[in-house]
């Protein structure tokens, strides 16, 4: 199994990253903040005013280290990746798959099914840990119903409708999972998120999307050609497809844990005049420290039956997707929480 490499987060402003031999050096003015061997780093994430020297950029491209840029508020801006890996035959197969309506539907169905099953699991687990609750049971039943209907769908629009219905049911109960009086959640709001929970969800989704993107590039798939998500210029559709499986069980649960353990409080968020809510610098560090720790945790992959770190899940799923497209697997096995 691939080694889980670390992610370097640069949140300090006016920092300069450069390369010395095979190491990455982080400087602020003349002060050296750190030096790390490049072979331990798989991702560099820069927030705001961070300069990366061209030789380091080139080196990262060569070594497959992804550099991504975010604004200081945490909005995704750009990403740099080097030479394309993998072979053109796999990518051509992927494009043919994307043109074949029957295959698109069957794969999209699997993804939506996994998404619904995983979001239902969040509620089942809550019920198991914190006792029966009729409203939570109702949501779980509604999700189970969506799941069984998902199997029969044969039309793309119907599938989207079903996904929307499941999402609505799922988010309607999220507020009950929050055990911190300072926060509440009513409905999912995006672009921009106008309350702390939505801001956290959007932020964590965007980070995991980047990891899915890296994973897809790493196995040689084209992240911009999706199945459930239709192509749109600049949208990494396949990475978003891959993200669906991780939303509830990984991202949402992580956000809930942060809130419920009171690792983040209402002081950690600021609201702009436009209504958009974002995390403070300090809170973002707390979040990343917790996120990195979460990525190190090991689980047994339900399909591979192998111990893997959570951070490697996007890579595992991308690998399975590539195998399915190559014809080594009859079906794509989406990630299902056990």
């Amino acid at each position, binding site marked *: 199994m691939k*080694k*889980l*490499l*670390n*992610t*370097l*987060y*640069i*949140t*300090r402003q006016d*920092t300069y990253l450069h390369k010395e*031999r*095979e*190491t990455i050096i*982080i400087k602020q003015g003349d002060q050296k*903040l*750190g*030096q*790390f*061997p*490049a*072979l*331990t*780093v798989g991702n560099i994430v820069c927030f705001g005013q961070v300069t990366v020297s061209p030789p380091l950029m080139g080196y990262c491209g060569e070594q497959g280290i992804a550099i991504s840029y975010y604004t200081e508020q945490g909005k995704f801006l750009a990403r740099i990746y080097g030479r394309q890996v993998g072979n053109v035959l796999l990518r051509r197969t992927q494009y043919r798959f994307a043109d074949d309506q029957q295959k698109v539907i069957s794969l999209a169905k699997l993804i939506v099914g996994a998404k619904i099953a995983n979001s239902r699991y969040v509620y089942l687990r809550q019920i198991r840990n914190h006792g029966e609750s009729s409203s939570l049971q109702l949501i779980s039943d509604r999700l189970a119903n969506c799941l069984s209907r998902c199997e029969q769908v044969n039309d793309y629009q119907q599938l989207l409708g079903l996904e929307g219905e499941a999402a609505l049911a799922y988010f309607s109960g999220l507020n009950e999972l929050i055990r911190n009086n300072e926060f509440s959640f009513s409905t999912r709001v995006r672009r921009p998120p106008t309350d702390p929970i939505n801001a956290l969800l959007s932020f964590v989704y965007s980070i995991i999307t980047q990891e899915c993107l890296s994973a897809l590039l790493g196995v040689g798939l084209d992240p911009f050609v999706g199945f459930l998500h239709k192509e749109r210029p600049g949208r990494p559709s396949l990475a978003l497809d891959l993200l669906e499986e991780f939303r509830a069980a990984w991202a949402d649960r992580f956000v809930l844990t942060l809130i419920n353990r009171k690792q983040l409080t209402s002081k950690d968020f600021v609201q702009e005049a436009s209504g958009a809510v974002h995390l403070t610098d300090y809170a973002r*560090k707390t979040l*990343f*420290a917790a*996120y*990195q*720790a979460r990525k*190190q945790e090991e689980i047994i992959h339900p399909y591979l039956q192998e111990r893997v770190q959570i951070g490697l899940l996007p890579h595992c799923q991308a690998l399975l997707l590539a195998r399915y497209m190559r014809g080594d697997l009859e079906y794509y096995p989406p990630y299902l929480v056990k």
Partner: protein
Amino acid sequence: MLVLITYDVNVTSTDGQKRLRNIAKTCLDYGMRVQCSVFECEIDPAQFIVLKNKLLTIFDSELDSLRFYFLGKKGKEKVEHYGVKDIPDPLRDSLIL
């Protein structure tokens, strides 16, 4: 696997100082400096062979000494640290600057 690399370089000549610098820099490419001439490198066997060869070509077998300690896969658990300057683990600690 975790490899601990220690060295003694004879620095009486300018040549020796150059070797010392080179060895330190090469070690930095692969791991973290934990004490003045002690490095911890968490690398796979293939990378280790490359590193070892680099070091062996730099050092002078007549004057210097190089030691490799193999702490194995669970090496991190075999290390205790006391006192100043705890070194971050570049593979596991959160690197947030």
